[in-house]
């Protein structure tokens, strides 16, 4: 990292990885969840504060269609999940934004809804983007069944037996969400309304909460339908199996622009993770307890990765290499001479850096952080921000140019004369505002490109600045060239936040948007990444997390690297 950047970036401390290393797309696209991930911090809070769950309404017909309301009581208020389920033609079922019908649509509601609220939502929620919502609704989302698993689980339970574990593990969820909207979308509550509530302070906590409650709903739903179908023969899911069931999610291009549009927030996420890693690898010695926990989580990770199967060839190759990496890590940890020296964690980290694939290195980071909750869990409080980008019009343009050359050298090295380096562009389609990724030279609409091409815009600004001999202020420069106002404001802000910027050209021909998606989803706490193309992926959320009735039972409430239940199918 350059000295000049270090001076403006006091968050960087010894043992933290550099932004150049961490914020490149290939490594971002190899990210894993850590104990700081948002789903993980949510379930720790649920446990710590002993949140209470209540099924308020479950008005469903024998097929599971109708209205359900599940309430959650946190220390000072109540939230409700309101779910509408209905029959849809299987041929209409699609994960895309442009879908128009879903098996289930739902809201997270602020409080307990009145009959009037329910009536209003019954009209709007099933329409999703075409409906309108109020600030009483915190989240709007929808989900589709995994047909092959949902029906199998219902049939099995109705006949008095548990579902086939291998089939269950091959999917991992009964339903998958295809969009989860919060933060003021379609009239829902702005984040500002709830940002000072303790339970909503962390990043994406209400969105994660809605998904967590919906997962509970899916378990209740299959058991209910099985009960209706099988009568007294029906059984409920074994608790270990129900805990293993997560919620699926299909994620497309919508997530990618978010990462570019919120640079300070992204810095805070990455800075928290890197600080956690730095704290761990700075430890002089390890304790028997942390060593034991590390070994346990490493063993789990080995099995978890062994159970991770996808169709995508490239991801399959990466998983195979990851399995080899983990085997080498197991071998390294089995040698006594490696364990009896100081700075064990740093040496593990260095071994991974020197020998592993990017997936292996990033998984090692997650493993190293995992046993050190007492040391790092406080960092989740810093993974949010109220800071936006801010212009400093007083700055001289010579100083601005110097900042560019010192902090954006990675962008200035890209040759934008080469058409391939700006072949792609991001835009909103008029079709339900679906974000799409176009080809600048063959698709219409490049003039309405989203302003996400940071490297290209930095390059253009630099080109303009080198032709300016006078050292006028930024304010005066922008009066002459208002087209640079956005990028100048961004530059002046992000130089204070070294992890804010993706250090790659996201409009070059070979950009894989899926790298951006995986990075964000890993911070959410997702697992089992299952890429379907370079544009979208399926994932599993909350797999292995305790269900509402499973907190405080004495079992571990941490759920990293969930494993297939060993319970035999009855």
């Amino acid at each position, binding site marked *: 990292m350059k000295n000049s950047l270090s001076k403006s970036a006091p968050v960087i401390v010894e043992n933290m990885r550099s932004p150049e290393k961490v914020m490149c797309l290939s490594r971002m696209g190899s990210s894993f969840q850590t104990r700081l991930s948002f789903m993980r911090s949510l379930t720790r809070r649920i446990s710590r504060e002993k949140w209470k769950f209540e099924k308020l309404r479950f008005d469903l017909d024998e097929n599971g269609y109708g209205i359900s309301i599940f309430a959650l009581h946190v220390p000072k208020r109540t939230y409700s999940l309101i779910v509408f389920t209905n029959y849809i033609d299987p041929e209409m079922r699609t994960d895309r934004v442009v879908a128009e019908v879903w098996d289930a649509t739902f809201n997270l509601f602020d409080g307990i809804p009145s009959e009037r609220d329910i009536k209003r939502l019954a009209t709007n929620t099933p329409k999703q983007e075409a409906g309108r919502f109020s*600030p009483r609704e915190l989240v709007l989302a929808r989900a589709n069944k995994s047909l092959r698993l949902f029906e199998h689980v219902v049939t099995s339970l109705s006949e008095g037996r548990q579902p086939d574990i291998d089939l269950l593990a091959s999917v991992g969820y009964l339903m998958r969400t295809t969009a989860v909207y919060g933060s003021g979308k379609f009239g829902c509550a702005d984040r500002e309304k709830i940002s000072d509530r303790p339970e909503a302070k962390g990043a994406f906590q209400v969105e994660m909460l809605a998904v967590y409650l919906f997962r509970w709903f899916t378990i209740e739903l299959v058991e209910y339908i099985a009960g209706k179908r099988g009568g007294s023969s029906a059984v409920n899911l074994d608790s270990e199996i129900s805990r293993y069931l997560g919620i699926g999610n299909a994620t497309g291009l919508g997530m990618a622009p978010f990462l570019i549009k919120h640079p300070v927030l992204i810095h805070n996420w990455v800075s928290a993770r890197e600080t956690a890693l730095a704290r761990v690898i700075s430890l002089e010695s390890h304790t028997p307890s942390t060593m034991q926990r590390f070994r346990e989580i490493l063993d789990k990770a080995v099995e978890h990765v062994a159970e991770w199967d996808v169709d995508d060839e490239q991801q399959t190759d990466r998983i195979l290499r990851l399995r080899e990496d983990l085997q080498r890590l197991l071998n390294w940890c089995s040698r006594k001479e490696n364990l009896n020296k100081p700075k064990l964690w740093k040496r593990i980290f260095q071994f991974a850096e020197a020998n592993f694939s990017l997936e292996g290195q990033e998984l090692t980071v997650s493993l190293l952080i995992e046993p050190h909750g007492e040391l790092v869990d406080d960092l989740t409080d810093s993974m949010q921000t109220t800071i936006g980008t801010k212009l400093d019009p007083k700055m001289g343009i010579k100083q601005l140019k110097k900042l560019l050359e010192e902090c954006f050298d990675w962008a200035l090295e890209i040759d934008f004369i080469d058409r391939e380096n700006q072949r792609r562009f991001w835009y909103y389609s008029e079709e339900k505002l679906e974000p799409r990724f176009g080809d600048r030279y063959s698709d219409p609409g490049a003039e309405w490109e989203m302003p996400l091409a940071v490297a290209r815009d930095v390059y253009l600004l630099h080109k303009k600045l080198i032709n300016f001999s006078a050292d006028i202020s930024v304010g005066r420069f922008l009066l002459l060239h*208002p087209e640079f106002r956005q990028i100048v404001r961004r530059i002046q802000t992000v130089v204070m936040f070294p992890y804010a910027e993706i250090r790659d050209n996201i409009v070059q021909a070979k950009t894989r948007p899926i790298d951006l998606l995986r990075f964000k989803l890993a911070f959410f706490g997702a697992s089992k990444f299952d890429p379907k193309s370079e544009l979208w992926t399926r994932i599993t959320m909350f797999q292995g997390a305790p269900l509402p009735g499973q907190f405080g039972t004495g079992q571990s409430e941490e759920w990293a690297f969930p494993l297939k239940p060993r319970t035999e199918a009855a």
Partner: protein
Amino acid sequence: MSSPELYLSFNEIMFYFTRAAAGAGVPFGLAEDFGRAAIWIAGSGLDPSGITANALHELECGHSCLKASLTEVNKEILLTAEGGKQLSAIQAGAALCDLISAQPENPKNMQSIVAENVDCPLLVCAAIGSANYDGWEISWPASEEIPCSVLICEDGSWKSSWNGREIPEQVAAADVKILTVNNREEYYEKWDGKTVYSGSNKKQLLETGVPVYESWSLIYSFFTRCLVPSTEESRKTGAGAGLVDTD
């Protein structure tokens, strides 16, 4: 007043208004300032579309422009549109904020700043208010008989020279003068008892949403220009394309 067309969240105001400005040809950085100004207006309990739509319309018609130049004479800075056109308040607001930021700390050394022939003066107030430059007074004539001024206060609040909540109709573009309020005595005398638009309205609006009225359709029509028509090809190559989720 007629019924609201819609209730928007503040996030939606930022999203739609920023892109509406972009749809009217405003560079994205200035468009973001326009979005923030719209939020400030909404937070005051006013319809952001009603106050901002004309600025986009004037740009669209070519009556106003974004290109401007600065001249300094003695202790006065003049901001003037190029080509004899009206100066768009979108540019004027941003440029005035930049000039305020560059003013010396000692009020005695501050310059008087005038933006000439501005199409929507109240939008300039919104720009300055949204940038949190409290203690600045913005003055302009709404018509020959009706001088208007606004004082930007702390926490998103502001005072207006007009009585009641009815904003005087702006009959033509006007010169907008801004100066800092450095004489506290004069300040109290002049602004005591004037209409206050409180920034605390925002808290209530976070619970209800922001009502927008008939001008919203104009904002939305500018917004839709930023959307790219869907083609068979782009639909086919979108994320998740070709999939029927029967698995």
